């Protein structure tokens, strides 16, 4: 089953314990959407994925990884 995993929790920790609310405000979504993405319950659009990566100033593949098995 294809699965998208993410390192948002880790990246938030590395960014000085950035809160989910702070990240949500930076990328223009609700805190609940960040919670859903972190918990792999929602796959963001490509646009939002890029905005999240930009918020941490890292390439996209350091935030999201795709497993096709």
């Amino acid at each position, binding site marked *: 089953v294809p699965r998208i995993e993410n390192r948002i929790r880790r990246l938030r920790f590395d960014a000085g314990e950035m809160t989910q609310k702070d990240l949500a405000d930076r990328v*223009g*979504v*609700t805190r609940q*959407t960040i919670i859903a993405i972190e918990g792999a319950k929602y796959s963001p659009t490509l646009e939002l994925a890029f905005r999240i990566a930009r918020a941490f100033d890292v390439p996209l593949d350091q935030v999201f990884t795709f497993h096709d098995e």
Partner: protein
Amino acid sequence: MSFGEREAASGLITTLIVTLLFLWRISGQYADGAFDGPDALQTWARSVLVLVAWSIGIAIAVFIAVAILHGILTGETDDDRKDERDRDIDRRSLTWAWYLLSFGILGVIIDLALGASAFRAVNLILALCGLSEAFRDAAKLVLYRRGA
């Protein structure tokens, strides 16, 4: 609980209240013989219009009550934004509800073709509208909780 989730919960409660009120009103009118005459459909339509007016007021009251209750229970400040996840869930639940309504109306047409009365058909269509609305809100809540 996001704004969209609260909206779905409010919608579900509103549909339940309005359905119960409508059943109470229509069954009362039916027992009084209001639908026995030749103008049964006009009487029914007037009752539905009253119901629509009620439902708007009830929807506003329930939405405010849910928002206040949510604020008291969670202490969260109200965030009334809707983002791409909300729109995705809206789109999916609307599609499922649309299928339910479409196949339901097809069933009513078949029922009419088999000899059902127009009065029965309009009641079934109205019930289908309520059911599909409730289904849409329930589907939203499931998608918010289970993941979209």
